[in-house]
């Protein structure tokens, strides 16, 4: 099969203006991926499926990945003009100081697609789409009209990660029950406080048991709602 660079060139030729980048995979598997922009995803996917040379007609796997916000501490060299006394004469001199700046890189959610070709017996091609952020800009175009294999898997990503796939024929929860709130596979998911008897509790289970026994309020979303309901009825009384 063509290399990732050749595929990128083919995509850019077929869908002009498409934003495609190569994401290098530092591990030993050699499976590098392409990062696609959302706007051109449907056209690029149609090209990948229908191109006679690539013929990537089989969508094998759709995964969701959660990249939370990261705090990055960077050492930056800052050059400033300072007034100094040099040999008894006052001059403005350039002084270079190293400062540590902290910034928060916003996180995003990601959907990773693995494509193979059943016709040409080749593959895999890995491509990813990233959402804007993790809170309000979580839409991605659905590729179910192009590959039916994405139907259940995109529903699962919606259920467990919270990415909303626009254009999906039937987007609802698939593994959790319909009234469930919150998205379990996210890295900041807090489980509800339903601690049961655990005889050999240690590490985080022990911490949860102690929290439960001390009667502290859990911070998960079900506990928050229970607290809201309790205060509401309290107010009503």
């Amino acid at each position, binding site marked *: 099969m063509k290399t990732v660079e050749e595929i990128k060139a083919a995509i850019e030729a077929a869908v002009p203006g498409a934003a495609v980048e190569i994401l290098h*995979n*530092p*591990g*030993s*598997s050699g*499976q590098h*991926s392409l990062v696609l922009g959302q706007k051109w995803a449907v056209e690029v996917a149609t090209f990948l499926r*229908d191109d006679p040379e690539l*013929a990537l*007609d*089989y*969508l*094998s*796997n759709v*995964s969701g*990945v959660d990249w939370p916000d990261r705090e990055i501490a960077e050492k930056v060299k800052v050059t400033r003009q300072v007034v100094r006394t040099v040999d008894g004469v006052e001059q403005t001199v350039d002084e270079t100081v190293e400062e540590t700046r902290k910034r928060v890189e916003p996180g995003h959610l990601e959907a*990773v697609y*693995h494509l193979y070709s*059943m*016709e040409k*017996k080749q593959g*895999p091609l*890995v491509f990813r789409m990233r959402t804007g952020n993790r809170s309000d800009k979580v839409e991605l175009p659905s590729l179910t*009209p192009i*590959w*039916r*294999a994405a*139907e*259940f*898997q995109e529903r699962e990503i919606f259920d467990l990660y919270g990415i909303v796939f626009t254009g999906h*024929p039937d987007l609802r*929860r*698939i*593994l*959790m*029950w319909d009234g469930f709130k919150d998205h*379990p*596979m996210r890295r900041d998911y807090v489980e509800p406080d339903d601690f049961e008897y655990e005889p050999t509790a240690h590490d985080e289970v022990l911490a949860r048991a102690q929290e439960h026994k001390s009667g502290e309020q859990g911070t998960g979303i079900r506990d928050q709602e229970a607290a809201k309901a309790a205060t509401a009825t309290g107010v009503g009384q």
Partner: protein
Amino acid sequence: MSAPATDISIKLARQEGWNRPPVIEPDGEGELLEVAMGPHHPSTHGVFRMDVALDGERVIRLKPVFGYLHRNHEKIAEGTSYLASMPYTDRLDYFCSLTNNWAYALAVEKLVAQTVPERAEYMRVILAELTRIQNHASSIGFLLQEMGASGTPLMYAFREREKILDLFEGLTGSRMMCNYMRFGGCRVDASPAWLDATRKVVAGIPEFVDEFEQFLRTNEILMARTQGMGILRPELAVNAGVTGPMLRASGVNYDIRKVDHYGIYDRFKFRVPLGDHWDIYDRYMVRMLEIRESIGILEQALKEIPGGPVMDPRAKIRGFRPKPGEAYGRIEAPKGELGFYLISDGSPNPYRYRVRPPSLINLTVLEDMCLGHNVADVVLIFGSVDIVLGEVDR
């Protein structure tokens, strides 16, 4: 059928919605009868529900509902080390624990470019083919059970399966939850006594398959109920990501053992059976023929297995920290393509651990195959998909 079975490059005029399920109009008047088949149901292969809307006996709408066995295996794996996830993979497709182990070991070995000694590769092939035989035999047994055969073919299949499970117990210590593969080989070596016992069991399987087929192949009830039923067009199968015996019964020649050349499958001569009519009977026949092909592979492997270590001496069991990177490894499990997608960030736990479950993806086309048929056929069509809920829900 007029279209040649193996030529899938036929591209239909892709109208809008060509890969969506057909819309069936009800015949009679009045409301549709909505029935929930499951989750507490003897024929649904586990806790699985189908919301069907019926017009008399005909199915107008069918929506599968699952998640009753969801244990969030993927999140557990993010919290434990790579080695500790291995026993959890046993419990995904609990019928075929050894192929689950192999798929996970393969994905991790791809992640770190780990080599596997030859004897271990032979052991993996032997155990995978034994798993395939017992899975296909049980699957046919369950299909017949749902057809009303009250357990006789099922018990015959299970009698053979017991012999294979005894072999697993003798080697790995446990009948079903084997936890046998490691990253870089296998956990324990097989003694010559075990290999002899395996050869004896394998020598007895062709007789069992003949006996089984004598029951079934010309049975009029089986033929009447399964031929022409549950037809899955090859273009739809490919587009819906269907893999495994279901795909090959729809005429598409795609077997990952032949395509990916993983392990040492290139050294064995075996054929890939394909179906011509794309119905349930073809799926049953493909599974029977695959049992026969697996017997051939087993005989070759048991003859050629070399000596040597079963574990790469440089592989680490504890303190395993792969470099950052990602890998997708897949094998031909008895139910379809079982893949593991791993993202590592250099820590002892995986950053993202994803299981690509064949049973879940094969269920995508359940609706297409069942609409317009009777309720009794829904049970059969569902049985021919051959799912295991441990894998669908993880």
